[in-house]
C-alpha cells in the first residue's frame, strides 16, 4: 500500500518537475526530488556580514555563474535579524501561526528588557550597574548556550532489557534540545503567568546558570554519568 503511495508521490513530483524542466534545462537524471529548485541552485547568503566574508575570501568568484535560490520570507538583512532567534520562533510556533510566535518572542524580549532595566535602576554601585546586562539578545544567547547538553540518553535494547545509553550529540541537536526545554518551561501546566513572562524569567535565570532549565541539563548529565557503564552498548 505504502509503496503504491510512494510511486504516486514520485510520479507527481516527476510531473511537476517535468513541467519546469524547460525553464531550468533540467536533465532527467535528477528528477527524483521534491524541491522546486534544481540541485545546482545554492542557498542565498542574505546577511550582509556573511556576504562580506564571502566577497573578501574570494569564494564569490566560484559562485559567479551559480544560480541562487530566492531568499525565504523570514530572511532579511535587518540588524534585528538573528538566526538563532529565527529558529527559536519556529520552535515556539504551533500549527503554523508564525505571526503569533513572533509576537510572543518579541514580548519575551520586552519583558527581559523591563526586568533588567529595573535591576539596573535599583543597582546602587557602578560595578553592579556594569554587571547588569540589559541587552535581551545577549541574555537569550547566553541562556541557550548555558543549557546546551553535551550528552543524551537513547534507549538501546540488549537481551530484552532497554538500557538508557549515553551518547554524544551534535551541535545542531544540542541547540534544539536547549531551545525545546525553554519552550516547555514557558508552557507551564498551571497557567497563572503568561508565556512571555515565564519564559523571560527562565531565560534570565539560565543566563546566570540558575533556574529549572539549567537544572534539567545538569540532571541529564548526572543520569548520563550514572549510566556510563552502559556506554559500550552503543557499539555491537
Amino acid at each position: 500500500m505504502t509503496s503504491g503511495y510512494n510511486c504516486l508521490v514520485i510520479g507527481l513530483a516527476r510531473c511537476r518537475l517535468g513541467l519546469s524542466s524547460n525553464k531550468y534545462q533540467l536533465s532527467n537524471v535528477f528528477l527524483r526530488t521534491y524541491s522546486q529548485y534544481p540541485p545546482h541552485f545554492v542557498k542565498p547568503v542574505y546577511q550582509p556580514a556573511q556576504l562580506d566574508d564571502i566577497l573578501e575570501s574570494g569564494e564569490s568568484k566560484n559562485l559567479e555563474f551559480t544560480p541562487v535560490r530566492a531568499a525565504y520570507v523570514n530572511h532579511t538583512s535587518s540588524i534585528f535579524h538573528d538566526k538563532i532567534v529565527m529558529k527559536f520562533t519556529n520552535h515556539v510556533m504551533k500549527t503554523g501561526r508564525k505571526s503569533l510566535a513572533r509576537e510572543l518572542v518579541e514580548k519575551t524580549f520586552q519583558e527581559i528588557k523591563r526586568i533588567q532595566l529595573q535591576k539596573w535602576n535599583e543597582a546602587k554601585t557602578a560595578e553592579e550597574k556594569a554587571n547588569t546586562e540589559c541587552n535581551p539578545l545577549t541574555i537569550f544567547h547566553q541562556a541557550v548556550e548555558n543549557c546546551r547538553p553535551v550528552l543524551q540518553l537513547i534507549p538501546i535494547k540488549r537481551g530484552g532489557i532497554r538500557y538508557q545509553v549515553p551518547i554524544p550529540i551534535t551541535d545542531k541537536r544540542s541547540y534544539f534540545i536547549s531551545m525545546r526545554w525553554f519552550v516547555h518551561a514557558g508552557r507551564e501546566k498551571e497557567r497563572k503567568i503568561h508565556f512571555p513572562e515565564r519564559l523571560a524569567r527562565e531565560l534570565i535565570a539560565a543566563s546566570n546558570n540558575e533556574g529549572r532549565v539549567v537544572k534539567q541539563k545538569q540532571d541529564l548529565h548526572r543520569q548520563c554519568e550514572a549510566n556510563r557503564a552502559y556506554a559500550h552498548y552503543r557499539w555491537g
Partner: protein
Amino acid sequence: MASVCIGNLVRNSAKVFRNSYITQVRTPYGLQIRCWNSTTPEPSSKPLTSVPASDTIKHEGSGNQLIKVSKAMKAYQEKAQALDALMFEKTTEYEIGRRHLANMMGEDPETFTDEDIDTAIEYLFPSGLFEPRARPLMKHPTEVFARKKVAEFDETGRPFHVLFYTGLPNYYQVLHDLSEKVRELDSFSDRMMQYNIHKDPERTLNVGGTEWVKKEQLEDILLEKLKDKQYEFFVRSMNRLLDHPFSYRVEEFIMKFRKHVQISVIHKEIPKLMFTAEGTPYMAAVGRRKTSTASVTVYGRGSGKISINGEDLLYFKYIQDREQVLFPLQFSGLLGKVDVVADVDGGGFSGQSGAIRYAISMAVRSFVDEQMMEKMRLAGLLTRDPRRHERKKPGWKGARAKYTWKKR
C-alpha cells in the same frame, strides 16, 4: 599462457585507443570503410564503390585465396555504403545550392561562408514562424544528419576495442581513463607527501562558469546511448576527480567534459533609468510570487515614501511582510533615498509582500552598481521564487499528510 596473452592484448589496445573515444576503421587488405565521425569528416569524398557486396572478397596479398566475411560485417558494409552514398549526394546538392545562393546574392561562390548562407536564406525566404527550427535552413549534411559510429570490428568479426563487449566501449573507456587519472594523482600526492612538499594553494583548477556536459551532449561525444544511472555515475566519478587536490594536473581531461554555462538574460540586460517630465529618475518592474502580481515603480531622489495600493507600509498587518518590502531597499542602502509606488493584486499577505520584494529588487538594479547587483543576486533577491502551493492528493488528508490508518 592464456593470461599473458590477454594481458598483452589489453595493454596494446589501451595504447592504441587511449584518448580516442571513437574507433577508427581500418580494415586490413586495403579495404577501407569511410564513415561519418568527428575525426574524419570528409564531406567531399567520393562514395565507396570498391567494396564488393558478396560473401567473399579477394585477398590481395596471397593470390586467389577467398576469405569469408561475417554476416554482421556484410550488413555493416552495406549500411555504410548506403550512408556514404547518401552523404555524397547531399554534399553535392549542398555545394550546388551554396553556389546558387552566392550567385543570387551577387557574391563570389568561392568565399561564400556558412554565415553568408544563413543571412541569404533569411533574406530570400523570410519566415514568420515562431519556432526557429521550423524556419527554412540550409546546413552542411554533416550538421543535419546524426553522426554514426564507424565499424567496430574487422571482416572476420573480431572487435577492435577491448571493451567492445561491454556494449558501450567509449563510455567505459572514459571511466577507465578516469580511474587511471585518479590513481595517477593519488600516487603523485603520495610522492609529494613523501618529500614533504605541500600543495601550492595558488595552483587550483578553476572550473567556475562551467558545468558537466548534459546527458545528451555526453551521448553526442561518445556516440552511445546512455542510461540515466550511467550518466549519474559518470558525473559522480568526474566530481571525485575534480575534488582531488591535484586535479589541476588533469585539467585537459576534465575540461573535455565541461561546458560553459550561459549567464541568464536577467543579469545581462539591465534597463536604463527613465526620467519623468520633471527629471526624476524612475524605473518600473513587475514581480510575482505564488499567485500575487505586483507592479512597482521606484522613483529616485525621494524621501523613503512607500505606497502600496494607495496605503502606506501599514497595508501589511504583519511585521514580517513589512520587512520583506523593505529588504531590497535596506540591503542596497537606498532606504530613505527612493520612493516606491506599488500596485499588488491576488494572493495573500506573504505572496503579495514577496511579489513586491521581487519587483523592487528588479527595479533597484538600475539604481545600483554591478557589485551591489551581484551581492543582491547572492542574497537571493534577484531570483523569482518558483515555489507554490502543493496540491492535495486524492485519498490523503493534504499534500503530504495521510489519514490515520488502522488495520482493523
